[in-house]
């Protein structure tokens, strides 16, 4: 997937201009938080659970080498083959070589943001394989030739009529209306059932890796991941280092936080644990299983000031609660991960040069950090990125100059006061009649859509001093 994060601001403007889509996003921004709040309230002591998982995650990432070794050992004992991939290309090549070793032609995929990150599909298609996405949302956007707009609901940007038209157009199944949502889902299901049965290789992601028993956990609502994992003879789990947790009970704590934060459910339809290939007395399951652990700069992030972003459990709550994400939608961010978590991950996984607009897409309102089940201080990390942007002079020279001049005046109160008083009296006079100015030089960013309220005239400090003097004279 070609990254276009540098054009975030232009994408955002274009997204806002599409009123229909903007309205649907507003509904998402209204209802998802309500669902999340209700679910966390019903749970009881959600805060204690958050704090618990934070402790576990911090401990685990501090001892990542230890838990990775334990996971690998347990996983190998279960009969899995474990691969490490330093780069996206290495992950893609590993998947491809496994497919080729089995003479595979068809790959059925469960939802996986990691394989979006590595652009696995493109690579497999280029090598002549057939790849089918089996998560309904992923299937829809694959058919439409689009990319996910949300890390949990990849097709949330598509309206029902759009999906209906897409299916009528793509599935050559003759006359039918697809009037009801159920009709659309049933059609997708019948097509996907065939794909599961025909697939030579299944590819899925993981929500957690359990060090003590070498199993991977997958949380879904559609069960498509389980069909990908169990029907094809070969299973490949594509995941990243930081999904690791010490114990099965830690994975369950994560699951409780994840589900409530992501969809507001108390439980998803499926929570599965995959330990390894079919054993002698098993009735089904894959014959060969692989786990690929991708690094892609994560060990660098671990050693940096941004390490807390590795605690992210990909629930999407920060997206649903972010006024910027809700305002402009996920595609504006121009890569795989949108919203607050994406605005941090994208610069770290690609480069700040390519994506320095993203950390600026933030009002520091703090709502994301308030709901983040992993307690990540997202606005602070975004500010740290802006600091790096400023240090490396990637932001506009005009802004940098402005900030420096402003800060200089702040440290020279007498001058600041004189200049401030003069400016305010001029603005006050200019805006006196209307109470506000429609246009101001150098402030088009403000006055393009807003009046500039006229200052009352005379600064507080000036007036206060005068009153105090007057008081002394009178007293």
């Amino acid at each position: 997937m070609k990254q276009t994060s540098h054009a975030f601001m232009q994408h955002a403007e274009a997204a806002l201009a599409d009123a229909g889509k903007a309205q649907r996003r507003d509904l998402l921004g209204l209802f998802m938080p309500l669902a999340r709040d209700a679910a966390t309230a019903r749970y009881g002591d959600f805060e204690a659970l958050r704090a618990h998982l934070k402790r576990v995650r911090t401990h685990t990432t501090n001892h990542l080498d230890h838990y990775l070794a334990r996971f690998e050992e347990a996983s190998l004992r279960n009969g899995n083959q474990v691969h490490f991939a330093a780069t996206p290309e290495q992950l893609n090549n590993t998947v491809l070589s496994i497919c080729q070793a089995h003479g595979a032609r068809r790959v059925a995929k469960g939802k996986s943001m990691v394989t979006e990150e590595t652009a696995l599909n493109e690579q497999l298609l280029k090598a002549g394989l057939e790849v089918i996405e089996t998560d309904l949302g992923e299937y829809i956007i694959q058919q439409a030739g689009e990319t996910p707009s949300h890390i949990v609901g990849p097709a949330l940007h598509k309206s029902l009529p759009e999906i209906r038209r897409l299916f009528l157009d793509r599935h050559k199944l003759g006359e039918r209306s697809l009037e009801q949502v159920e009709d659309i889902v049933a059609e997708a299901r019948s097509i996907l059932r065939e794909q599961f049965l025909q697939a030579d290789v299944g590819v899925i992601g993981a929500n957690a890796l359990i060090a003590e028993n070498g199993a991977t956990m997958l949380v879904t609502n559609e069960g498509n991941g389980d069909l990908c994992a169990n029907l094809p003879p070969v299973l490949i789990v594509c995941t990243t280092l930081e999904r690791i947790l010490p114990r099965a009970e830690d994975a369950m704590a994560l699951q409780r936080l994840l589900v409530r934060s992501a969809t507001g459910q108390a439980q998803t339809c499926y929570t599965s644990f995959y330990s390894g290939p079919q054993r002698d007395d098993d009735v089904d399951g894959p014959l060969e299983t692989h786990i690929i652990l991708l690094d892609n700069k994560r060990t660098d992030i671990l050693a940096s000031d941004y390490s807390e972003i590795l605690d992210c459990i990909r629930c999407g709550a920060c997206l649903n609660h972010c006024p910027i994400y809700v305002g402009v939608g996920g595609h504006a961010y121009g890569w795989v991960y949108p919203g607050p978590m994406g605005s941090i991950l994208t610069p770290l996984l690609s480069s700040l040069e390519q994506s320095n607009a993203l950390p600026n897409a933030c009002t520091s309102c703090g709502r994301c950090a308030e709901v983040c089940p992993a307690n990540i201080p997202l606005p602070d990390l975004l500010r740290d990125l802006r600091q790096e942007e400023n240090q490396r002079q990637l932001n506009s020279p005009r802004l940098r100059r402005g900030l420096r001049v402003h800060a200089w005046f702040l440290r020279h109160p007498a001058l600041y006061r004189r200049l401030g008083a003069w400016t305010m009296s001029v603005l006050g006079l200019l805006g006196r009649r209307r109470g506000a100015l429609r246009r101001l030089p150098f402030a088009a960013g403000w006055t393009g859509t807003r009046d500039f309220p006229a200052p009352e005239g005379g600064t507080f400090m000036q007036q206060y001093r005068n009153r105090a003097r007057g008081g002394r004279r009178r007293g």
Partner: protein
Amino acid sequence: MENQKPKRRRTRPRRDVALMVTCLADLMRPSVGFAAVRLLERAGCRVTVPERQTCCGQPAYNNGDVNAAVPVARAVIEMFEPYDYVVIPSGSCAGMLSRHYPALFEGEWRDRALALAAKTWELTRFLTEVAPLPPPKRPPLDATVTYHDGCAGLREQDIKQQPRQLLLQQCGVDVSELSQTEVCCGFGGTFCTKMPALSTKMADDKLNSAVATGANILLGGDLGCLLHLAGRARRRGLELEVRHVAEILAGTPPGPGIGDPNG
């Protein structure tokens, strides 16, 4: 003028409060500063306004220019050291002093920043939790009022009920609530000029919600948000008076609302 009144003797020792006016109130709307002084005096405080104050340094800090923000923070920390309390009519500036200054330093300066953080209060919180206002001596306000919670106040200072409680006690006003009170108005400091279209859309969401409450006055505790909302309301020609909550609480004969014509 209050300083013409004979001074009453008080048995309770007065609290020594330094007022941080905030740059926006100082420059744009001095009446917010005077309202804060009156409220604090009414609550029995001795108010000082240190002369060297300018701004808390948030613009530089939020835009990543820490080198510019640190000397500003040092000056603020030093300036307020002699006082028992620092009170600020803004949740955002109060958050800067109490939450973000300590993060700027290590060692001795961090301790000094933490000492400042411990005695820094946003105005409405101070007037409910530290120095309560006496009962009012005026008739209830005849207006429908809605309230915008600034994000920094809401999330960094736990300010939600305090202004509502004060409005009820002091003005007999029950706030008619906006629909999504916890969603940002789109000001966000320099954000409002970095992403003007989105910032404006967020202001419109707030203003539409305010109009839907039937309110004729929109109050808030942060001038940044209020200037942004008032500026947008004027551009749209909405009949909505926008004010800082301190202006209404102080009960002074108010001048025009933010961005409204004189007289």
